[in-house]
């Protein structure tokens, strides 16, 4: 099937009345929850997950994707109006976006973010259309050694790009791998770490752990600082960028999109890296670098474009290789598995309607967001100022219903409570849980591919270095690790990855 046929199929899938409606519901709900302070995409998806159960697979996936980029848009609104980033990748947006809001230019900052995101989303979607089929056919030639090296690269990238120390991130990743190994070993059928409990034979459900650590854990952290929570929302004035604004933001949006599209494909924390790199690049090449951090519109448009472009293209490794590039994508895989879909290179050939419908709905969703967000920004601002003590009980209820409904199992609800406490503990110990989440899904894959590789090579580990692709991937991973030792990169990383609170 060529691209054109695919797009036609996609349009016919995405524009059925129910898919269109659920795409709309997804972006609307995603934005509504995403604007709530302190809720990043992972928490948003886990809160809204129960709304996608009971839907047909393609509809559910379309709605999930809608929730995902809706939450990204919502996150930047909060970042600009309240100076509260919902996730690490919106930290950059707060730098100049909130300064603009303080100067009474909140509407123009929001417009710059929305326009940049829409343009980037369109390009990102086009890139998926072109690159995903190529990569999927390439992926069919990958052996277990290549997969194993790619997984290592993904894990290492996510560790390097996590705030806090590398050692802590390494520990978190190892802990995540062990959590992932709970359950029946697929090769030998041996039950591992199940403590004789039948509930653990199928393993810990990934969505349960993510919801507990990110959703419930964040609620616990937020309640800790309840007294400190300030609700100051900047007023929104004119939404229309001036001619000067257009002139200043066009090139940054183009550059940001380019950076985002390419970095989003990289396994690891692609979205985060994209927005930081785009901001750094703009600051470097700007004629007025002194304006950055004081309300430069370039500093809003470029990282937002990069952020959204990467948010689209990070679907590529997930859809074509079945490997999640980010913790959010790992959660998406978890949600897909709940729906009975195993992402991987076969998805394109076996379920083309699903793939193309998703791609087209991404673009439609971005279009909806552009027209939804700008006129509705007053409503979002009101939603931001809803006091937290009204919100968090509802958040708890949605998460509990969602987790229960995955397997209709009360045990999962208890597990979520446990991981909520654990998530709180990790946050308080200064350990970011993102590598844990990614490792939990990548760890068992790594074991499986390692086992297959060594079985074929009779225990000879040198195969990882004789296959050119595997060698190249490992070299990139090693360079990333080495780069963190260099003091110069260290400084950039520390500046870039300040604590997101």
């Amino acid at each position, binding site marked *: 099937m060529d691209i054109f046929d695919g797009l036609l199929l996609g349009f016919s899938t995405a524009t059925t009345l129910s898919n269109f409606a659920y795409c709309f519901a997804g972006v609307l709900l995603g934005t509504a929850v995403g604007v709530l302070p302190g809720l990043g995409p992972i928490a948003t998806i886990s809160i809204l997950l129960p709304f996608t159960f009971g839907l047909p697979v393609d509809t559910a996936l379309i709605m999930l994707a809608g929730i995902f980029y809706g939450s990204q848009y919502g996150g930047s609104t909060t970042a600009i109006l309240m100076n509260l980033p919902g996730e690490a990748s919106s930290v950059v947006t707060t730098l100049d976006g909130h300064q603009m809001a303080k100067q009474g230019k909140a509407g123009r900052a929001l417009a710059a973010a929305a326009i940049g995101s829409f343009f980037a989303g369109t390009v990102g979607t086009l890139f998926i259309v072109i690159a995903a089929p190529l990569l999927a056919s390439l992926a069919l030639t990958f052996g277990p050694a290549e997969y194993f090296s790619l997984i290592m690269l993904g894990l290492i990238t996510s560790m390097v790009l996590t705030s806090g120390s590398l050692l*802590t991130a390494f520990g978190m990743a190892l802990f995540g791998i062990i959590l992932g190994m709970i359950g029946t070993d697929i090769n030998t059928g041996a039950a*591992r770490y199940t403590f004789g409990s039948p509930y653990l034979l199928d393993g810990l459900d990934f969505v349960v752990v993510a919801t507990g650590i990110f959703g419930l854990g964040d609620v616990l952290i937020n309640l*800790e600082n*309840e007294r400190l929570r300030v609700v100051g929302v900047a007023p929104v004035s004119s939404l229309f960028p001036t001619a000067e604004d257009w002139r200043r933001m066009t090139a940054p949006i183009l550059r940001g999109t380019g950076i985002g599209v390419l970095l989003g494909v990289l396994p690891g924390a692609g979205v985060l890296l994209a927005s930081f790199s785009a901001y750094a690049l703009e600051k470097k090449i700007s004629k007025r670098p002194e304006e950055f951090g004081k309300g430069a519109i370039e500093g809003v448009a470029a990282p937002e474009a990069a952020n959204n472009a990467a948010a689209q293209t990070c679907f590529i490794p997930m859809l074509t290789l079945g490997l999640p590039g980010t913790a959010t994508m790992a959660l998406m895989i978890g949600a897909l598995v709940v729906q009975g879909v195993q992402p991987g290179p076969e998805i394109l050939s076996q379920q083309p309607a699903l793939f193309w419908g998703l791609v087209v709905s991404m673009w439609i969703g971005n279009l909806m967001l552009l027209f939804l967000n700008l006129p509705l920004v007053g409503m979002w601002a009101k939603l931001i100022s809803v006091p937290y003590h009204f919100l968090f009980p509802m958040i708890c*209820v949605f998460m509990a219903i969602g987790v229960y409904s995955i397997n209709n199992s009360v045990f999962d609800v208890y597990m979520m*409570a446990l991981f909520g406490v654990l998530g709180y503990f990790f946050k308080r110990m200064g350990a970011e849980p993102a590598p844990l989440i990614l490792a939990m899904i990548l760890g068992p894959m790594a074991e499986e591919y390692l086992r297959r590789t*060594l079985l074929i090579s009779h225990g000879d580990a040198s195969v990882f270095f004789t296959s050119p692709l595997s060698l190249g991937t490992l070299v990139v991973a090693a360079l990333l690790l080495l780069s963190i030792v260099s003091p110069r990169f260290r400084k950039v990383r520390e500046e870039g990855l300040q604590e997101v609170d």
Partner: protein
Amino acid sequence: MKLSQDVLLGLFFVVFGVVSVSIAMSYPFGTSGRMGPGYFPVIISSLLVLTGLLVLFRAQLVQPEILPAIRWKPLLLIPGAVVIFGLAVETLGLPLAILLLTILSAATSIKFHIGWKAVAGSLAFAALCSVIFIELLGLPIPMVGSWLRVLGF
């Protein structure tokens, strides 16, 4: 040794790692060519123990940060309320389970006071959620739990 973030985290890694290694030792290890179910867990858990020790070692090098006081009330009550939801959802049914979770978790907030608004709000929320999830989305969650059905509801 003063308690600091790193000390607690390091201890957590070491203890979890040691438990994990000792469990994994009982699984057949196999060889590199034929990995048994214990091969990967033993390696990963040992690495975790090592990482934990390094974190503990690092804790000795730097000035410990003072741990801020913990607000125990939400930390205990919210997970407790979630567990109660789990206990109630099949026995009492979804609406009552939601009501319990809403009120118990809301009670942890410093701004909480019980009044007719809070009661009416949580009742409406429980009813709305039950209608959305059970009637509209068709999730297989009981509206009326097993205990209540015994009583003849």
